[in-house]
């Protein structure tokens, strides 16, 4: 019986909001209904966690069970992690049938061939998503269950959502294993990151509402449309101008709610151009970093012009985020932003 496993379970329980602990444990399905009934869920979380730990010890929980609980937790609260989107590519066109078991096997084999001390766990969900949890060790130490990487892979799509571990050195390994396991040839970061996994999915699967699309996942809400009072004593002088702004805004952002991103980052690199007589070193570019952050960046951008905080028709640099599917940009001379074709980091 490994006491670290129990402690790990206990700490995972501590992370769950108290009123949700029961539901998560039920989904976990490791403790019996009878055992669950012995736990008092109205005491302080600390005590609940000890109770759960004790029951797990009775059931001799192993690391696999603990990992599943962690996956459930992360699946339920995906916003606790930062997710990046990766795209995989094929050179040949051959379509193969997708086999989950093959993928699992290949993935495990690929990783284990390089690093022996890893914990790998899978869990499938109805939306054809496969959640992979990897805890990393080193050749000489056991896997660190507290610094895990997460991969969410949707079969039939080339997109992978990775929430990397703090142990960054393992990322290339992970990417390689993914490419091999899913029969692709290449993987690259899309420079799109957010805490909201669902929004990332919306962006890359293009399921969020945009004007040029017919598909709209959520009904268009009548929001901010008619706050104008009917009172005849208030007269809007710039009605036509306002309508123009509304139209422009709609063209850019569409009607529906925007996917949730927390930031957009622009790196500007420009060379210093000067009179050649002035002996100024111009080898090194000027670097400038602009970061926009907001709890809900795209909604904020969308409301800028209607709120009168910016001129209508925002810069395309800001509005291109959803359809370029990236929120990290590098702006170089001639404003050419070419997506890097290899994994950075």
């Amino acid at each position: 019986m490994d006491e670290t496993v129990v402690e790990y379970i206990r700490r995972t329980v501590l992370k769950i909001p108290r009123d949700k602990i029961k539901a998560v444990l039920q989904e976990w399905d490791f403790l019996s209904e009878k055992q669950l009934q012995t736990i008092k869920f109205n005491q302080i979380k600390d005590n609940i966690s000890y109770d759960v730990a004790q029951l797990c010890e009775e059931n001799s929980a192993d690391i696999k069970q603990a990992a599943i609980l962690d996956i459930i937790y992360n699946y339920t609260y995906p916003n606790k992690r930062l997710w990046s989107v990766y795209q995989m590519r094929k050179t040949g066109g051959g379509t193969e049938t997708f086999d989950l078991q093959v993928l699992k096997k290949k993935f495990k084999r690929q990783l284990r061939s390089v690093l022996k001390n890893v914990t790998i766990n899978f869990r499938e969900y109805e939306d054809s998503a496969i959640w992979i949890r990897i805890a990393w060790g080193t050749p000489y130490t056991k896997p660190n269950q507290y610094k895990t990487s997460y991969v969410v892979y949707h079969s039939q799509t080339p997109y992978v959502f990775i929430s990397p571990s703090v142990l960054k050195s393992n990322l290339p390994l992970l990417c390689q294993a993914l490419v091999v396991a899913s029969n692709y040839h290449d993987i690259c970061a899309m420079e799109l990151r957010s805490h909201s996994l669902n929004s990332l999915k919306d962006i890359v699967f293009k399921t969020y509402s945009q004007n040029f699309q017919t598909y709209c996942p959520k009904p268009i809400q009548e929001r901010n449309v008619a706050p104008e009072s009917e009172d005849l004593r208030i007269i809007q002088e710039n009605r036509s101008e306002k309508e123009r702004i509304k139209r422009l805004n709609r063209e850019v952002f569409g009607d529906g709610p925007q996917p949730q991103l927390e930031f957009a980052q622009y790196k500007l690199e420009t060379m210093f151009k000067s009179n050649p007589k002035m002996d100024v070193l111009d080898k090194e570019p000027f670097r400038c970093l602009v970061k926009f952050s907001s709890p809900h960046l795209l909604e904020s951008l969308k409301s800028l012009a209607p709120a009168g905080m910016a001129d209508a028709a925002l810069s395309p640099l800001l509005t291109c985020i959803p359809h370029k599917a990236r929120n990290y940009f590098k702006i170089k001379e001639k404003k050419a932003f070419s997506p890097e074709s290899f994994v950075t980091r």
Partner: protein
Amino acid sequence: MQRSQTSKTPKQPLQVHKHQTDLSAWQKGGRIDPEKSVQNHQSPNDQKNGSKPDSLEQALSFFEKLQDSVSLKKDHALQKHLTTVESIALQRGLPPEGFAILLNVALSGKFADTLNTHLLKSLVPASVIPENSVVSSVSWLCVGKCSGNVQLLFLKWLITMFDFIDHKEQIYALYGFFFSFLQDEKMCPYVCHLLYLLTRKENVKPFRIRRLLDLQAKMGMQSHLQALLSLYKIFCPELVTITLPGKVKTYFKNSEGPWKAAINAVRQRNKQNSPVPRLLFLGTVQLRSRKRKWNTQLIIPANSTNKNDLEEDREKNHVDLYRMNESFPVEQLQTFPQLLQNIHRLEFPSQMGSVLTNPLLLHYMNCIKDESVFLRLYYWMSQVLQEECTWCVADNYQHEEEFKDFLETVYKTECFLQEGFSSCEEFLYRSLPLWDGFSCRSQFLRLVSWIPLNSFSEMKSHLYDPLAQLFFTSSLYFKCSVLESLKELLCNWLNWHVIHLNSESGFQVHSLNTTLSGLVNTVAELVHFVGWISTVALRLENNTTFLLYFILDFYETVCDMYLGYNLPLLIMPPAGIFYPALLSMDSVSLNQLCYIMYRYRTNLVAAKENELSKQKILQFKFSRQTYQEYNQYVIAMVGCLWTSSVFQKDVHPRGLRMDDELLKKTAVQEFKTSFNIVYHPALMGYAVHFLQQAWPDDTTFNFSLIKGKKWNWYLEYLYAQGLKGLKVFIESSINRVSQASHSKAGSVKA
């Protein structure tokens, strides 16, 4: 360092040792023993604490025995104990005996900095911090084994926790050591802050001043050096001869960052559990938010909150504690007799804000007249008030309520001390131009009444201009409140003047270098300002009686400044106030005006007499103009109330004088008699009642019946109705030759 060995052997043996001296014992216990822990949880009386105390003891004894270099990453036991210490410290603070051990580990320099900072950051006291532990850590600091960052963090910790240290005599003795740390450029700001807290008069030495000046020459004008120098200057003005800027916005960087939340949490918790009388907190609301530093700092630092600990402590150290030069802990000060008994050995808490809510300390502060105390209070208060626009924070409604409470407390303190705080004044000057006239309204206006006397140029642009803008655009009630608080302001100034006249012997609480003429000018400007805004306000508000009441109320103070407050200044109200009051439809205003004019007369007559008798060579004389103005007004009043000659005799440029031709055109038949105590619109109601009582059968309302003897009866009737102002005015200003209506205006000769 002579005391460095104490760190190795703490004076009081740890309780831990009694239970478990053997290392293996705790190791066994360290494993999760499910049965035991569950039992612990389920025991009903110990739900809250769980198995934590044991684990803390284990952790402490682990740290005590910790030898050299262990890696935080690798050593699981270390990791576990560190987490225990951290979580317990942040939840409810550490017991006194833990500090020596943990400080010893953190500052020895044997271990990695991550461990050291973790430990330092979790050093939150549950009750007190033993002085020994601090002394021994200073010895580690002198050895210089730990890294710069750890040193800095330790200093910040010491500053933040200063008030939690149980006694400070030995720490005071280390003054020189701390002073020597000033050389270090990084530590300098924090060392200055610490020295600022430690400095006593005997610490101020010429060589130290020289050192500080050298530093200042080297590093430029740094606010922390200035703070220390200004404190030195207060203690020994003869030694510090350089001039220092009077008002600095912030002296020290805030150093309580890492511990703030934890201290508040612990304080909150201890407050709930402790049996200490709530009296200590004196009704200030305890707040949860981390951001709001006001009210939380009003509480005397919490080493008092755990009474049991203190008492225990006292028993242990009773020999030391009752030494004569030992200071009496302020947090134990609860009754007035206690204050009297211990007044010679009181020391202010370094958190000066707590003084505000403690009347006993305020009494003490009032009687010791120590500049440095005021300076510290000033420093604290300006720091609290420095954030801009604290009165209104868009996304925090509660904030305003709390800020109101704080301002209220400040105001009450000002009333108690009968003195305005200059930090508060600065706050007002900074805020009024941006103020909306709504948030914290009554608090702002009340604080205005405690603005200290100043030269006018400052007052004008900082106070009068913004106030006038708000005044003109705001509601009637706002106008009245402004007038009310300006009246309070005037009274406070006048009282201040009177007190200083009486005690000319020269105690100077204020560094205010006002001469009498300066004072007279400032007061005159205030009165003129009120006259001006009142005139405009009457026009804007259509001469409302309500407003007029507040205006005349202000002038009730103005008219008595010479006799009442011994200030050689009398200013008549402007015509824009006088005439609306004289012609008011309301007897209250008229009565008030009569009383005011009577007081003006009394004052002017007294001034004249003084001038004539020349007993005293007067520095100031009232100008002819004042007398002239008074005379003009009195003529108008007598014409309006008595002789029915207001249209002929009122020679004031804005007066009521009209040509007969013009008056005839009005088609009023007896225009000549249309203004006197019978016909005046404010008094006609009385006349009607009088007629009804005197001639119950007559329904024609023949006002002309009131004459001769009846006129006198009518006067008596008016007096009986409570028009005392009218009474004193008529009795003083109207010379009634006989009972006939021949009378003469009793004007004062210029």
